[in-house]
């Protein structure tokens, strides 16, 4: 059967026969790096056109429809435009930090891809603290935004960066607590273990109402963490022109733009892994025929299908709800999401100890 794991194994065997172990490792690292960069480029192109089409259809518009069939090559044309544009560094900016900030954003996004299981047995690094690693490294995302905002030497950028810092730091809490709910249930931080624990049903079905609440708080918190509307105060166009990336242009702006979409992909794939079973196919109880039919669908399609469904949900939020004010944003987190997810975590812990799940 053709699967990602199969291809990776074949490649590894072939390389091991050709070279000694050190060179095999180095070549494999290079291949993984190229694959990650390729995935980023693809994600950028696909998610931008997806966002533009989804937004258009939700606002009763047509969206891009001129470049390529049905406008599907529009994001390629945009990328080309951004590539040839001049990258400007303002005079009063802190040149070093200004130029480093977009790369920090990209590097953090790349590091976050490591523990994600794209298909069965297909993972870059199955480290035993997978979920903690993701929440740790994603807390570095805010650093690039703060760097960009400060070094631009522009009041809009600074205000955008401060807003985004306050927002990310506070929403990290409820995202972490809702992730903990799944960790408590499955009893492991390792991504492969968490997926394996969902072989007989996804956690959102097995965990009754508490895990559904955890799922909802997770989705809300990650929408805020990736700075997307209705929580896009960091780059609120009507108030701050473009927030922390006001002064960026050309490819450096494109890197921020790409990092935002890659982060959306990453948080959605984490959500799919924790709550919707990762690459596990959809099974219903004892319907063996149905379950076998579901098994025929490759695991990578299950993973990407779930991830893109969650991305669609987040886009759906963005194009439905108006932006929150800063006090409403902080109220939502500290007065609603945090208490709810804390109590929810207690309930989940009681359920896990008493075994009240399937």
């Amino acid at each position, binding site marked *: 059967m053709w699967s990602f794991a199969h291809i990776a194994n074949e490649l590894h065997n072939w390389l091991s026969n050709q070279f000694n172990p050190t060179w095999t490792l180095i070549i494999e690292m290079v291949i993984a790096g190229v694959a990650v960069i390729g995935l980023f480029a693809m994600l950028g192109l696909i998610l931008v056109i997806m966002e533009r089409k*989804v937004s258009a*259809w*939700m*606002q*009763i*518009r*047509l969206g891009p*429809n001129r470049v390529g069939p049905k406008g599907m090559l529009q994001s390629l044309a945009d990328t080309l435009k951004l590539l040839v544009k001049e990258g400007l560094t303002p005079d009063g900016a802190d040149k070093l930090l200004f130029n480093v900030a977009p790369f920090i954003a990209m590097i953090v996004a790349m590091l976050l891809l490591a523990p994600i299981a794209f298909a069965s047995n297909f993972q870059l690094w199955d480290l035993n603290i997978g979920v903690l690693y993701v929440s740790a490294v994603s807390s570095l995302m805010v650093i690039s935004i703060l760097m960009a905002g400060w070094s631009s030497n522009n009041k809009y950028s600074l205000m955008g960066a401060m807003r985004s810092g306050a927002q990310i730091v506070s929403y990290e809490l409820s995202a972490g607590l809702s992730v903990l709910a799944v960790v408590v249930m499955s009893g492991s931080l390792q991504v492969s273990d968490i997926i394996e624990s969902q072989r007989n049903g996804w956690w959102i079905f097995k965990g009754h109402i508490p895990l559904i609440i955890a799922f909802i708080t997770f989705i809300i918190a990650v929408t805020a963490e990736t700075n997307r509307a209705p929580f896009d105060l960091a780059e609120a166009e009507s108030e701050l022109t473009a927030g922390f990336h006001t002064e960026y242009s050309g490819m450096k702006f494109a890197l921020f733009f790409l990092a935002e979409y890659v982060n959306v992909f990453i948080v959605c794939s984490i959500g799919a892994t924790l709550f919707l079973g990762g690459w596990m196919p959809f099974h219903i109880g004892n319907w063996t025929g149905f379950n076998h039919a579901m098994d025929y669908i490759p695991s990578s399609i299950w993973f990407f299908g779930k991830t893109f469904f969650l991305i669609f949900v987040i886009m*759906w*939020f963005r*194009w*439905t*709800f108006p932006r929150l004010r800063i006090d409403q944003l902080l109220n939502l987190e500290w007065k*609603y999401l945090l208490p*709810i997810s804390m109590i929810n975590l207690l309930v989940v812990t009681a359920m896990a100890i008493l075994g009240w799940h399937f």
Partner: protein
Amino acid sequence: MFIGKYIKDIWAGIRSLLVGMKRTLYYFTHHKEIITQQYPDNRDTLELPERFKGEVVMPHNENNEHRCTGCQACELACPNGTIKVIFKNELNAEGKKKKAIDKLVYHLELCTMCNLCIEACPSDAIKMAQTFEHSVFDRNQLTKVLNKPGSKIMDGVE
């Protein structure tokens, strides 16, 4: 009670969010609702909304007659001096001198399509047309005379 109000708040919030999401999902799945007009392509079948305001025109009937009495109400109503009424004296049937319009000059390049002149007109002599492709190479072409040459006022309009 505090807890009761808290839970009620959350419930009301989630419900109103779901109402909004239902609406956008409806639009997302029903593409026939799309209102975008692909203008240069559908020029022949273009449908404009009824109240679309393109330029001021003066309708004439088949006898080359209009309804303008030259009362200058439109000229006074216009906020930026778009309309200029130029008079001439003409003899009516009884041989009396009567004031009538010679030219109703309309500067399209100054017009903001605010519709105030149409509302001010007591005899419904001018109205808004739906044409909107106004670009020309010479600015002078935008200064238009609304009444056709040789036209006169319709009978019975005072």
